[in-house]
Protein backbone atom coordinates (compact mmCIF):
# COMPACT_ATOMS: atom_id res chain seq x y z
CA UNK A 1 0.00 0.00 0.00
CA UNK A 2 1.25 3.43 -0.95
CA UNK A 3 0.25 6.65 0.82
CA UNK A 4 1.36 10.21 0.07
CA UNK A 5 1.11 13.57 1.86
CA UNK A 6 2.34 17.10 1.22
CA UNK A 7 4.32 19.08 3.80
CA UNK A 8 4.26 22.89 3.56
CA UNK A 9 7.11 25.05 4.83
CA UNK A 10 6.33 26.82 8.08
CA UNK A 11 2.89 25.24 8.44
CA UNK A 12 3.24 24.11 12.07
CA UNK A 13 -0.55 24.20 12.47
CA UNK A 14 -0.88 21.14 10.29
CA UNK A 15 2.17 19.31 11.58
CA UNK A 16 1.23 15.74 12.36
CA UNK A 17 -1.43 15.26 9.71
CA UNK A 18 0.62 12.64 7.86
CA UNK A 19 1.49 10.81 11.07
CA UNK A 20 -2.16 10.94 12.17
CA UNK A 21 -3.38 9.39 8.94
CA UNK A 22 -0.69 6.71 8.91
CA UNK A 23 -1.49 5.94 12.53
CA UNK A 24 -5.12 5.31 11.63
CA UNK A 25 -4.11 2.96 8.84
CA UNK A 26 -1.70 0.97 11.02
CA UNK A 27 -4.33 0.60 13.74
CA UNK A 28 -6.77 -0.87 11.23
CA UNK A 29 -4.07 -3.29 10.15
CA UNK A 30 -3.85 -4.61 13.70
CA UNK A 31 -0.24 -3.53 14.14
CA UNK A 32 0.94 -3.75 17.75
CA UNK A 33 0.22 -0.38 19.49
CA UNK A 34 3.82 0.02 20.66
CA UNK A 35 5.07 -0.31 17.08
CA UNK A 36 2.43 2.15 15.88
CA UNK A 37 3.63 4.55 18.53
CA UNK A 38 7.25 4.33 17.37
CA UNK A 39 6.25 5.01 13.76
CA UNK A 40 4.11 7.97 14.79
CA UNK A 41 6.76 9.51 17.05
CA UNK A 42 9.48 9.20 14.40
CA UNK A 43 7.31 10.49 11.59
CA UNK A 44 5.96 13.40 13.60
CA UNK A 45 9.52 14.43 14.40
CA UNK A 46 10.54 14.19 10.74
CA UNK A 47 7.44 16.08 9.66
CA UNK A 48 8.21 18.92 12.07
CA UNK A 49 11.82 18.97 10.82
CA UNK A 50 10.69 19.36 7.23
CA UNK A 51 8.26 22.11 8.20
CA UNK A 52 10.79 23.96 10.35
CA UNK A 53 14.03 23.63 8.44
CA UNK A 54 13.13 22.84 4.83
CA UNK A 55 11.17 24.48 2.05
CA UNK A 56 8.39 21.88 2.35
CA UNK A 57 8.23 18.49 0.70
CA UNK A 58 6.34 15.21 0.60
CA UNK A 59 5.83 12.27 2.92
CA UNK A 60 5.35 8.84 1.37
CA UNK A 61 4.58 5.60 3.15
CA UNK A 62 4.75 2.09 1.75
CA UNK A 63 3.27 -0.64 3.87
CA UNK A 64 3.55 -4.38 3.35
CA UNK A 65 2.92 -7.28 5.71
CA UNK A 66 6.43 -7.09 7.19
CA UNK A 67 7.36 -3.44 7.39
CA UNK A 68 6.52 0.19 6.82
CA UNK A 69 8.88 2.37 4.84
CA UNK A 70 8.40 6.11 5.28
CA UNK A 71 10.23 8.72 3.23
CA UNK A 72 10.22 12.42 4.02
CA UNK A 73 11.58 14.14 0.94
CA UNK A 74 12.16 17.87 1.24
CA UNK A 75 13.25 20.53 -1.25
CA UNK A 76 16.25 21.86 0.58
CA UNK A 77 18.31 23.59 1.85
CA UNK A 78 20.03 20.28 2.70
CA UNK A 79 22.21 19.23 5.64
CA UNK A 80 25.93 19.99 5.18
CA UNK A 81 27.15 17.47 7.79
CA UNK A 82 24.77 14.57 8.45
CA UNK A 83 26.99 12.87 11.06
CA UNK A 84 27.08 16.10 13.05
CA UNK A 85 23.29 16.47 12.82
CA UNK A 86 22.78 12.91 14.03
CA UNK A 87 24.43 13.66 17.37
CA UNK A 88 22.26 14.60 20.32
CA UNK A 89 22.46 18.25 21.25
CA UNK A 90 23.77 19.51 17.92
CA UNK A 91 21.42 22.07 16.49
CA UNK A 92 21.42 24.84 13.93
CA UNK A 93 18.40 26.48 15.51
CA UNK A 94 18.65 30.17 16.37
CA UNK A 95 18.71 31.30 20.03
CA UNK A 96 15.15 32.63 19.58
CA UNK A 97 13.89 29.24 18.45
CA UNK A 98 15.69 27.54 21.33
CA UNK A 99 14.12 29.97 23.77
CA UNK A 100 10.73 28.78 22.50
CA UNK A 101 11.62 25.25 23.55
CA UNK A 102 12.53 23.89 20.11
CA UNK A 103 15.89 23.22 18.51
CA UNK A 104 17.34 21.08 21.27
CA UNK A 105 19.18 18.99 18.71
CA UNK A 106 17.10 15.91 19.41
CA UNK A 107 15.25 15.60 16.08
CA UNK A 108 17.27 13.08 14.10
CA UNK A 109 18.59 11.24 17.18
CA UNK A 110 14.99 10.79 18.39
CA UNK A 111 13.95 9.43 15.00
CA UNK A 112 16.85 7.01 15.07
CA UNK A 113 15.80 5.70 18.49
CA UNK A 114 12.33 4.83 17.25
CA UNK A 115 12.96 3.15 13.89
CA UNK A 116 14.65 -0.08 12.84
CA UNK A 117 16.54 1.42 9.89
CA UNK A 118 17.31 5.06 9.18
CA UNK A 119 18.94 6.48 6.10
CA UNK A 120 19.49 10.19 5.59
CA UNK A 121 20.62 11.43 2.19
CA UNK A 122 21.23 15.11 1.68
CA UNK A 123 22.64 17.42 -0.97
CA UNK A 124 23.14 21.03 0.01
CA UNK A 125 21.04 23.25 -2.21
CA UNK A 126 18.89 20.35 -3.40
CA UNK A 127 17.25 18.71 -0.43
CA UNK A 128 17.16 15.94 2.14
CA UNK A 129 15.51 12.53 2.08
CA UNK A 130 14.92 10.89 5.43
CA UNK A 131 14.12 7.24 4.90
CA UNK A 132 12.93 5.25 7.88
CA UNK A 133 11.81 1.71 8.13
CA UNK A 134 9.99 -0.03 10.97
CA UNK A 135 9.33 -3.75 11.18
CA UNK A 136 5.66 -4.43 11.77
CA UNK A 137 5.99 -7.72 13.61
Amino acid at each position, binding site marked *: *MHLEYTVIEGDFVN*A*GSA*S*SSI*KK*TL*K*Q*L*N*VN*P*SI*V*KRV*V*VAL*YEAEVNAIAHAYGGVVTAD*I*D*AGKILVRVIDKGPGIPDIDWAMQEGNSTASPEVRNMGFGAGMGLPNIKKNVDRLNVQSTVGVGTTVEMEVN*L*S
Partner: protein
Amino acid sequence: MSFFHALQINENVCEGCSHCMRVCPTEAIRVRDGKAHINEDRCIDCGNCFIACPHKAVFVKQDDFEEIFKYACRVALVPAVFLGQFKDEISVSRIYSILNEIGFQHVIETEITVPIYTEAKNRLEREGNTKPLISSYCPAIVRLIQVKFPGLVDNIMPVKAPLDITAMYIRRKLVKDGWPEDQIGVFYVTPCAAKIAAVKSPVGEEKSSVDGVINMDSLYNRVYKKIKEQGHDYKEVKLPIAQLTSDSILNSLTNGERRLSVSEHSLSIDGMDNVIEFLEKVENDEIEDVDFLELRACDQSCPGGILTYNNRFLTCERMFNRARYVAGKERRGELTRADEVEDERAYLLDNVAVGPVEARSISLDPDISKALEKMNKIKELERQLPQIDCGICGAPSCDALAEDIVCRGCKLSDCIFIQRNMEAHKTQKVEESLKTMENIWGYEKIENFVKNK
Protein backbone atom coordinates in the same frame (compact mmCIF):
# COMPACT_ATOMS: atom_id res chain seq x y z
CA MET B 1 -14.79 -12.28 23.11
CA SER B 2 -18.12 -10.72 24.00
CA PHE B 3 -18.79 -7.70 26.18
CA PHE B 4 -21.80 -6.89 28.27
CA HIS B 5 -23.63 -3.86 26.98
CA ALA B 6 -26.28 -1.97 28.87
CA LEU B 7 -27.44 -0.03 25.82
CA GLN B 8 -29.94 -1.92 23.69
CA ILE B 9 -32.30 -1.12 20.85
CA ASN B 10 -36.00 -1.80 21.20
CA GLU B 11 -36.79 -2.97 17.69
CA ASN B 12 -40.53 -2.50 18.20
CA VAL B 13 -40.01 1.21 18.66
CA CYS B 14 -36.99 1.84 16.43
CA GLU B 15 -37.88 3.61 13.21
CA GLY B 16 -34.46 3.22 11.67
CA CYS B 17 -34.15 7.01 11.42
CA SER B 18 -30.34 6.81 11.79
CA HIS B 19 -29.97 9.65 14.29
CA CYS B 20 -28.09 7.31 16.64
CA MET B 21 -25.84 6.08 13.84
CA ARG B 22 -24.60 9.61 13.19
CA VAL B 23 -23.54 10.38 16.76
CA CYS B 24 -21.79 7.13 17.69
CA PRO B 25 -18.13 7.93 18.43
CA THR B 26 -16.94 4.44 17.47
CA GLU B 27 -19.16 3.98 14.38
CA ALA B 28 -20.78 0.99 16.07
CA ILE B 29 -24.27 1.47 14.60
CA ARG B 30 -25.73 0.46 11.23
CA VAL B 31 -29.29 0.57 9.90
CA ARG B 32 -30.47 -2.72 8.39
CA ASP B 33 -34.02 -3.89 7.66
CA GLY B 34 -35.29 -0.56 8.89
CA LYS B 35 -33.77 -0.94 12.38
CA ALA B 36 -30.63 0.29 14.08
CA HIS B 37 -28.15 -2.41 15.09
CA ILE B 38 -25.30 -1.99 17.56
CA ASN B 39 -22.01 -3.77 16.93
CA GLU B 40 -21.11 -5.12 20.36
CA ASP B 41 -17.37 -5.21 19.71
CA ARG B 42 -17.33 -1.49 19.08
CA CYS B 43 -19.93 -0.16 21.53
CA ILE B 44 -18.44 1.58 24.58
CA ASP B 45 -21.77 2.30 26.33
CA CYS B 46 -21.26 6.07 26.22
CA GLY B 47 -24.96 6.84 25.68
CA ASN B 48 -24.69 9.23 22.72
CA CYS B 49 -27.25 7.10 20.84
CA PHE B 50 -29.63 7.20 23.81
CA ILE B 51 -29.55 11.01 23.81
CA ALA B 52 -29.90 11.27 20.03
CA CYS B 53 -32.84 8.87 19.63
CA PRO B 54 -36.08 10.83 18.98
CA HIS B 55 -38.26 7.74 19.57
CA LYS B 56 -36.79 6.49 22.86
CA ALA B 57 -35.92 3.25 21.12
CA VAL B 58 -32.55 3.05 22.84
CA PHE B 59 -32.92 1.77 26.35
CA VAL B 60 -30.67 0.88 29.24
CA LYS B 61 -31.02 -2.67 30.42
CA GLN B 62 -31.21 -2.91 34.20
CA ASP B 63 -31.64 -5.57 36.82
CA ASP B 64 -35.17 -6.26 37.99
CA PHE B 65 -35.71 -4.28 41.20
CA GLU B 66 -37.10 -7.39 42.91
CA GLU B 67 -33.59 -8.90 42.60
CA ILE B 68 -32.66 -7.02 45.75
CA PHE B 69 -34.93 -9.25 47.81
CA LYS B 70 -32.80 -12.29 46.97
CA TYR B 71 -30.47 -10.95 49.62
CA ALA B 72 -31.16 -10.68 53.33
CA CYS B 73 -28.84 -7.72 53.76
CA ARG B 74 -29.51 -5.06 51.13
CA VAL B 75 -27.29 -2.09 50.47
CA ALA B 76 -28.05 0.89 48.23
CA LEU B 77 -24.82 2.39 46.94
CA VAL B 78 -25.82 5.90 45.91
CA PRO B 79 -23.60 8.45 44.21
CA ALA B 80 -23.78 12.08 45.38
CA VAL B 81 -25.33 12.86 42.00
CA PHE B 82 -28.46 10.99 43.13
CA LEU B 83 -29.04 13.32 46.06
CA GLY B 84 -28.35 16.19 43.65
CA GLN B 85 -31.47 15.19 41.70
CA PHE B 86 -33.78 16.38 44.47
CA LYS B 87 -34.78 19.88 45.46
CA ASP B 88 -33.12 21.38 48.54
CA GLU B 89 -36.26 21.10 50.68
CA ILE B 90 -36.14 17.30 50.45
CA SER B 91 -33.59 16.39 53.08
CA VAL B 92 -30.92 13.74 52.80
CA SER B 93 -32.34 11.95 55.82
CA ARG B 94 -35.75 11.78 54.17
CA ILE B 95 -34.31 10.25 51.00
CA TYR B 96 -32.39 7.73 53.10
CA SER B 97 -35.58 6.94 54.99
CA ILE B 98 -37.52 6.29 51.79
CA LEU B 99 -34.74 4.10 50.42
CA ASN B 100 -35.08 2.12 53.62
CA GLU B 101 -38.85 1.84 53.18
CA ILE B 102 -38.54 0.46 49.67
CA GLY B 103 -36.16 -2.25 50.79
CA PHE B 104 -32.62 -1.16 51.66
CA GLN B 105 -31.46 -1.56 55.25
CA HIS B 106 -28.21 0.22 54.44
CA VAL B 107 -27.59 3.31 52.35
CA ILE B 108 -24.07 4.47 51.63
CA GLU B 109 -22.78 7.19 49.37
CA THR B 110 -20.33 6.05 46.70
CA GLU B 111 -17.99 8.95 47.43
CA ILE B 112 -17.31 7.92 51.03
CA THR B 113 -14.04 6.27 49.90
CA VAL B 114 -12.90 9.14 47.68
CA PRO B 115 -10.04 9.96 50.10
CA ILE B 116 -8.73 6.39 49.58
CA TYR B 117 -9.14 6.63 45.81
CA THR B 118 -7.41 10.01 45.77
CA GLU B 119 -4.48 8.72 47.77
CA ALA B 120 -4.01 5.71 45.44
CA LYS B 121 -4.23 8.02 42.43
CA ASN B 122 -1.81 10.55 43.88
CA ARG B 123 0.71 7.83 44.66
CA LEU B 124 0.70 6.87 40.98
CA GLU B 125 1.00 10.51 39.99
CA ARG B 126 4.02 10.93 42.27
CA GLU B 127 5.73 7.77 40.99
CA GLY B 128 5.41 9.38 37.59
CA ASN B 129 6.33 6.43 35.38
CA THR B 130 3.48 7.00 32.96
CA LYS B 131 2.88 10.27 31.24
CA PRO B 132 0.19 11.33 30.95
CA LEU B 133 -1.54 9.23 33.55
CA ILE B 134 -5.20 8.85 32.57
CA SER B 135 -7.87 8.54 35.23
CA SER B 136 -9.77 5.25 35.39
CA TYR B 137 -12.80 6.99 36.91
CA CYS B 138 -15.13 7.07 33.89
CA PRO B 139 -15.83 3.60 32.47
CA ALA B 140 -16.97 4.97 29.10
CA ILE B 141 -13.55 6.60 28.74
CA VAL B 142 -11.75 3.39 29.70
CA ARG B 143 -13.74 1.58 26.99
CA LEU B 144 -13.17 4.36 24.47
CA ILE B 145 -9.43 3.99 24.96
CA GLN B 146 -9.63 0.20 24.66
CA VAL B 147 -11.46 0.42 21.34
CA LYS B 148 -10.18 3.59 19.71
CA PHE B 149 -6.83 4.33 21.32
CA PRO B 150 -5.26 0.92 22.01
CA GLY B 151 -1.82 2.56 22.21
CA LEU B 152 -2.90 4.38 25.37
CA VAL B 153 -4.28 1.50 27.47
CA ASP B 154 -1.12 1.45 29.57
CA ASN B 155 -1.65 5.11 30.46
CA ILE B 156 -4.88 4.29 32.32
CA MET B 157 -4.17 4.18 36.03
CA PRO B 158 -4.74 0.67 37.39
CA VAL B 159 -6.95 1.78 40.26
CA LYS B 160 -10.54 0.87 41.07
CA ALA B 161 -13.12 3.62 40.76
CA PRO B 162 -14.64 4.96 44.02
CA LEU B 163 -17.80 2.96 43.40
CA ASP B 164 -15.87 -0.33 43.50
CA ILE B 165 -13.80 0.72 46.49
CA THR B 166 -16.94 1.65 48.41
CA ALA B 167 -18.64 -1.63 47.46
CA MET B 168 -15.55 -3.46 48.73
CA TYR B 169 -15.59 -1.41 51.93
CA ILE B 170 -19.26 -1.91 52.78
CA ARG B 171 -19.06 -5.61 52.03
CA ARG B 172 -16.13 -5.99 54.40
CA LYS B 173 -17.85 -3.96 57.07
CA LEU B 174 -21.04 -6.02 56.91
CA VAL B 175 -19.10 -9.29 57.02
CA LYS B 176 -17.39 -7.97 60.16
CA ASP B 177 -20.86 -7.15 61.55
CA GLY B 178 -21.69 -10.83 61.17
CA TRP B 179 -23.49 -11.06 57.83
CA PRO B 180 -22.63 -14.10 55.70
CA GLU B 181 -20.93 -12.99 52.48
CA ASP B 182 -23.58 -14.51 50.19
CA GLN B 183 -26.46 -12.78 51.94
CA ILE B 184 -25.10 -9.30 51.28
CA GLY B 185 -26.47 -7.63 48.16
CA VAL B 186 -24.81 -4.37 47.11
CA PHE B 187 -26.83 -2.42 44.52
CA TYR B 188 -25.36 0.53 42.74
CA VAL B 189 -27.61 3.38 41.61
CA THR B 190 -26.14 4.36 38.29
CA PRO B 191 -26.34 7.68 36.45
CA CYS B 192 -25.14 6.13 33.18
CA ALA B 193 -24.96 3.01 31.02
CA ALA B 194 -21.19 2.70 31.10
CA LYS B 195 -21.14 2.09 34.85
CA ILE B 196 -23.54 -0.82 34.33
CA ALA B 197 -21.15 -2.33 31.80
CA ALA B 198 -18.33 -1.68 34.28
CA VAL B 199 -20.14 -3.69 36.95
CA LYS B 200 -21.26 -6.50 34.61
CA SER B 201 -17.99 -6.94 32.76
CA PRO B 202 -15.29 -5.12 34.72
CA VAL B 203 -12.01 -4.22 33.05
CA GLY B 204 -8.90 -5.50 34.79
CA GLU B 205 -10.92 -7.45 37.36
CA GLU B 206 -12.55 -10.87 37.47
CA LYS B 207 -15.70 -9.84 39.25
CA SER B 208 -17.12 -6.63 40.63
CA SER B 209 -18.01 -6.25 44.32
CA VAL B 210 -21.38 -4.89 43.20
CA ASP B 211 -24.21 -7.43 42.90
CA GLY B 212 -26.66 -5.46 40.84
CA VAL B 213 -27.42 -2.13 39.27
CA ILE B 214 -30.46 0.11 39.54
CA ASN B 215 -30.96 2.85 37.01
CA MET B 216 -31.05 6.27 38.62
CA ASP B 217 -34.12 7.42 36.70
CA SER B 218 -36.19 4.46 37.85
CA LEU B 219 -35.11 4.86 41.47
CA TYR B 220 -35.85 8.58 41.25
CA ASN B 221 -39.39 7.67 40.17
CA ARG B 222 -39.82 5.27 43.08
CA VAL B 223 -38.53 7.73 45.64
CA TYR B 224 -40.39 10.71 44.22
CA LYS B 225 -43.63 8.74 44.16
CA LYS B 226 -43.21 8.06 47.90
CA ILE B 227 -42.54 11.73 48.56
CA LYS B 228 -45.73 12.67 46.72
CA GLU B 229 -47.77 9.98 48.46
CA GLN B 230 -46.57 10.96 51.91
CA GLY B 231 -46.94 14.70 51.47
CA HIS B 232 -46.11 16.46 54.73
CA ASP B 233 -47.29 13.58 56.84
CA TYR B 234 -44.39 11.20 57.20
CA LYS B 235 -42.14 9.64 59.77
CA GLU B 236 -38.44 9.24 59.11
CA VAL B 237 -36.47 6.13 59.89
CA LYS B 238 -33.10 7.48 60.96
CA LEU B 239 -30.33 5.69 59.11
CA PRO B 240 -26.72 6.51 59.87
CA ILE B 241 -25.50 9.11 57.39
CA ALA B 242 -21.76 9.10 56.86
CA GLN B 243 -20.47 12.61 56.20
CA LEU B 244 -18.75 13.19 52.88
CA THR B 245 -15.97 15.73 52.79
CA SER B 246 -16.43 18.69 50.45
CA ASP B 247 -13.73 17.22 48.20
CA SER B 248 -15.61 13.94 48.03
CA ILE B 249 -18.90 15.62 47.13
CA LEU B 250 -17.22 17.37 44.19
CA ASN B 251 -15.41 14.24 42.99
CA SER B 252 -17.93 13.21 40.33
CA LEU B 253 -18.11 16.71 38.83
CA THR B 254 -15.78 18.00 36.15
CA ASN B 255 -12.51 19.03 37.83
CA GLY B 256 -13.35 16.80 40.82
CA GLU B 257 -10.16 14.79 40.46
CA ARG B 258 -7.99 17.41 38.85
CA ARG B 259 -8.40 19.86 41.69
CA LEU B 260 -6.82 17.28 44.01
CA SER B 261 -4.07 16.31 41.58
CA VAL B 262 -0.51 16.47 42.88
CA SER B 263 0.94 16.84 39.39
CA GLU B 264 2.29 20.07 38.06
CA HIS B 265 0.29 19.86 34.84
CA SER B 266 -3.12 18.28 34.82
CA LEU B 267 -6.20 18.76 32.69
CA SER B 268 -9.84 17.90 33.03
CA ILE B 269 -11.87 17.35 29.89
CA ASP B 270 -15.54 16.42 29.66
CA GLY B 271 -17.70 15.52 26.66
CA MET B 272 -16.94 12.67 24.27
CA ASP B 273 -15.92 14.82 21.29
CA ASN B 274 -13.57 16.91 23.42
CA VAL B 275 -11.95 13.83 24.88
CA ILE B 276 -11.45 12.20 21.47
CA GLU B 277 -9.95 15.36 20.03
CA PHE B 278 -7.42 15.49 22.84
CA LEU B 279 -6.58 11.78 22.90
CA GLU B 280 -5.79 11.90 19.17
CA LYS B 281 -3.08 14.40 20.02
CA VAL B 282 -1.84 12.42 22.98
CA GLU B 283 -1.61 9.31 20.82
CA ASN B 284 0.40 11.22 18.21
CA ASP B 285 2.77 12.32 20.95
CA GLU B 286 1.94 15.92 20.12
CA ILE B 287 1.16 16.71 23.76
CA GLU B 288 4.14 17.27 26.00
CA ASP B 289 4.30 18.01 29.68
CA VAL B 290 0.86 16.88 30.72
CA ASP B 291 1.06 14.64 33.78
CA PHE B 292 -2.52 13.79 34.61
CA LEU B 293 -5.74 13.66 32.60
CA GLU B 294 -9.19 13.58 34.14
CA LEU B 295 -11.46 12.53 31.28
CA ARG B 296 -15.24 12.20 31.50
CA ALA B 297 -17.53 11.10 28.69
CA CYS B 298 -20.53 13.23 29.63
CA ASP B 299 -20.86 16.99 29.51
CA GLN B 300 -20.55 18.18 33.14
CA SER B 301 -19.39 14.65 34.04
CA CYS B 302 -21.76 12.43 36.05
CA PRO B 303 -24.56 15.00 36.46
CA GLY B 304 -24.80 14.73 32.65
CA GLY B 305 -25.32 10.95 32.77
CA ILE B 306 -28.15 9.69 30.58
CA LEU B 307 -30.06 8.18 33.51
CA THR B 308 -30.27 11.36 35.54
CA TYR B 309 -33.54 13.23 35.81
CA ASN B 310 -32.53 16.73 36.83
CA ASN B 311 -30.89 19.21 34.46
CA ARG B 312 -27.13 18.68 34.70
CA PHE B 313 -26.30 22.32 35.39
CA LEU B 314 -28.81 22.47 38.23
CA THR B 315 -27.44 19.22 39.67
CA CYS B 316 -23.94 20.72 39.60
CA GLU B 317 -25.20 23.82 41.36
CA ARG B 318 -26.86 21.78 44.11
CA MET B 319 -23.74 19.71 44.58
CA PHE B 320 -21.58 22.83 44.74
CA ASN B 321 -23.88 24.28 47.38
CA ARG B 322 -23.72 21.09 49.40
CA ALA B 323 -19.92 21.08 49.15
CA ARG B 324 -19.78 24.73 50.17
CA TYR B 325 -21.95 24.07 53.21
CA VAL B 326 -19.74 21.11 54.22
CA ALA B 327 -16.58 23.13 53.57
CA GLY B 328 -17.87 25.69 56.09
CA LYS B 329 -18.28 22.93 58.67
CA GLU B 330 -14.80 21.66 57.85
CA ARG B 331 -13.32 25.07 58.48
CA ARG B 332 -15.07 25.31 61.81
CA GLY B 333 -13.96 21.78 62.72
CA GLU B 334 -17.55 20.58 62.99
CA LEU B 335 -17.47 17.72 60.51
CA THR B 336 -17.65 14.25 61.95
CA ARG B 337 -15.12 12.28 59.94
CA ALA B 338 -15.99 8.96 58.37
CA ASP B 339 -13.87 7.16 60.97
CA GLU B 340 -15.11 3.73 60.01
CA VAL B 341 -13.70 4.16 56.53
CA GLU B 342 -10.49 5.60 57.95
CA ASP B 343 -10.10 2.47 60.07
CA GLU B 344 -10.05 0.40 56.88
CA ARG B 345 -7.67 2.73 55.04
CA ALA B 346 -4.73 0.30 55.00
CA TYR B 347 -6.85 -2.66 53.84
CA LEU B 348 -8.57 -0.65 51.12
CA LEU B 349 -5.32 0.86 49.83
CA ASP B 350 -3.89 -2.64 49.59
CA ASN B 351 -6.83 -3.72 47.45
CA VAL B 352 -7.48 -0.80 45.12
CA ALA B 353 -5.26 -2.09 42.33
CA VAL B 354 -6.71 -3.70 39.22
CA GLY B 355 -4.96 -5.63 36.47
CA PRO B 356 -3.81 -4.03 33.25
CA VAL B 357 -6.40 -2.73 30.79
CA GLU B 358 -6.37 -4.65 27.55
CA ALA B 359 -6.88 -3.17 24.10
CA ARG B 360 -10.07 -4.13 22.25
CA SER B 361 -8.71 -3.58 18.81
CA ILE B 362 -11.14 -3.19 15.90
CA SER B 363 -8.77 -4.09 13.07
CA LEU B 364 -9.81 -5.31 9.64
CA ASP B 365 -8.28 -8.75 10.09
CA PRO B 366 -6.03 -10.42 12.66
CA ASP B 367 -3.70 -11.43 9.83
CA ILE B 368 -1.81 -8.40 8.59
CA SER B 369 -1.51 -9.63 4.98
CA LYS B 370 -5.25 -10.14 4.77
CA ALA B 371 -5.87 -6.83 6.54
CA LEU B 372 -3.63 -5.12 3.99
CA GLU B 373 -5.51 -6.73 1.13
CA LYS B 374 -8.82 -5.55 2.57
CA MET B 375 -7.41 -2.09 3.18
CA ASN B 376 -6.35 -1.79 -0.45
CA LYS B 377 -9.86 -2.68 -1.56
CA ILE B 378 -11.35 -0.22 0.93
CA LYS B 379 -9.11 2.63 -0.30
CA GLU B 380 -10.14 1.81 -3.87
CA LEU B 381 -13.84 1.93 -2.93
CA GLU B 382 -13.39 5.14 -0.97
CA ARG B 383 -12.32 6.80 -4.20
CA GLN B 384 -15.51 5.63 -5.93
CA LEU B 385 -17.89 6.79 -3.21
CA PRO B 386 -19.13 10.40 -3.12
CA GLN B 387 -17.58 11.15 0.31
CA ILE B 388 -20.46 13.26 1.55
CA ASP B 389 -21.36 10.86 4.38
CA CYS B 390 -25.12 11.14 3.83
CA GLY B 391 -25.84 7.91 5.68
CA ILE B 392 -28.54 6.75 3.26
CA CYS B 393 -26.71 3.45 2.79
CA GLY B 394 -27.26 2.70 6.49
CA ALA B 395 -23.62 3.27 7.40
CA PRO B 396 -22.41 6.45 9.13
CA SER B 397 -19.88 7.47 6.48
CA CYS B 398 -18.69 6.61 2.99
CA ASP B 399 -15.53 5.14 4.51
CA ALA B 400 -17.64 2.99 6.82
CA LEU B 401 -19.63 1.72 3.82
CA ALA B 402 -16.39 0.94 1.99
CA GLU B 403 -15.32 -1.14 4.98
CA ASP B 404 -18.75 -2.81 5.18
CA ILE B 405 -18.54 -3.74 1.50
CA VAL B 406 -15.18 -5.42 1.99
CA CYS B 407 -15.78 -6.96 5.42
CA ARG B 408 -19.51 -7.33 5.92
CA GLY B 409 -21.08 -8.18 2.59
CA CYS B 410 -22.57 -4.83 1.66
CA LYS B 411 -22.75 -3.78 -1.99
CA LEU B 412 -21.47 -0.73 -3.83
CA SER B 413 -25.04 -0.26 -5.06
CA ASP B 414 -26.11 0.37 -1.43
CA CYS B 415 -24.85 3.88 -2.14
CA ILE B 416 -27.77 5.94 -3.41
CA PHE B 417 -25.55 7.98 -5.76
CA ILE B 418 -24.03 4.92 -7.35
CA GLN B 419 -27.50 3.43 -7.62
CA ARG B 420 -28.82 6.42 -9.56
CA ASN B 421 -25.87 6.20 -11.88
CA MET B 422 -26.44 2.50 -12.43
CA GLU B 423 -30.09 3.16 -13.22
CA ALA B 424 -29.16 5.92 -15.64
CA HIS B 425 -26.69 3.67 -17.39
CA LYS B 426 -29.21 0.82 -17.40
CA THR B 427 -26.94 -1.45 -15.40
CA GLN B 428 -29.55 -1.73 -12.67
CA LYS B 429 -33.31 -1.91 -12.84
CA VAL B 430 -35.53 0.27 -10.68
CA GLU B 431 -36.90 -2.87 -8.97
CA GLU B 432 -33.41 -3.98 -7.98
CA SER B 433 -32.72 -0.54 -6.68
CA LEU B 434 -35.91 -0.53 -4.60
CA LYS B 435 -35.01 -3.95 -3.24
CA THR B 436 -31.65 -2.62 -2.08
CA MET B 437 -33.28 0.29 -0.29
CA GLU B 438 -35.77 -2.09 1.27
CA ASN B 439 -32.91 -4.17 2.68
CA ILE B 440 -31.58 -1.08 4.38
CA TRP B 441 -34.69 0.83 5.39
CA GLY B 442 -37.18 -2.01 5.71
CA TYR B 443 -40.28 -2.90 3.73
CA GLU B 444 -42.68 -0.73 5.68
CA LYS B 445 -40.74 2.47 5.37
CA ILE B 446 -40.33 2.13 1.62
CA GLU B 447 -43.97 1.07 1.25
CA ASN B 448 -45.22 4.08 3.26
CA PHE B 449 -42.95 6.40 1.39
CA VAL B 450 -44.19 5.18 -1.98
CA LYS B 451 -47.83 5.25 -0.85
CA ASN B 452 -47.66 8.78 0.49
CA LYS B 453 -46.21 10.10 -2.74
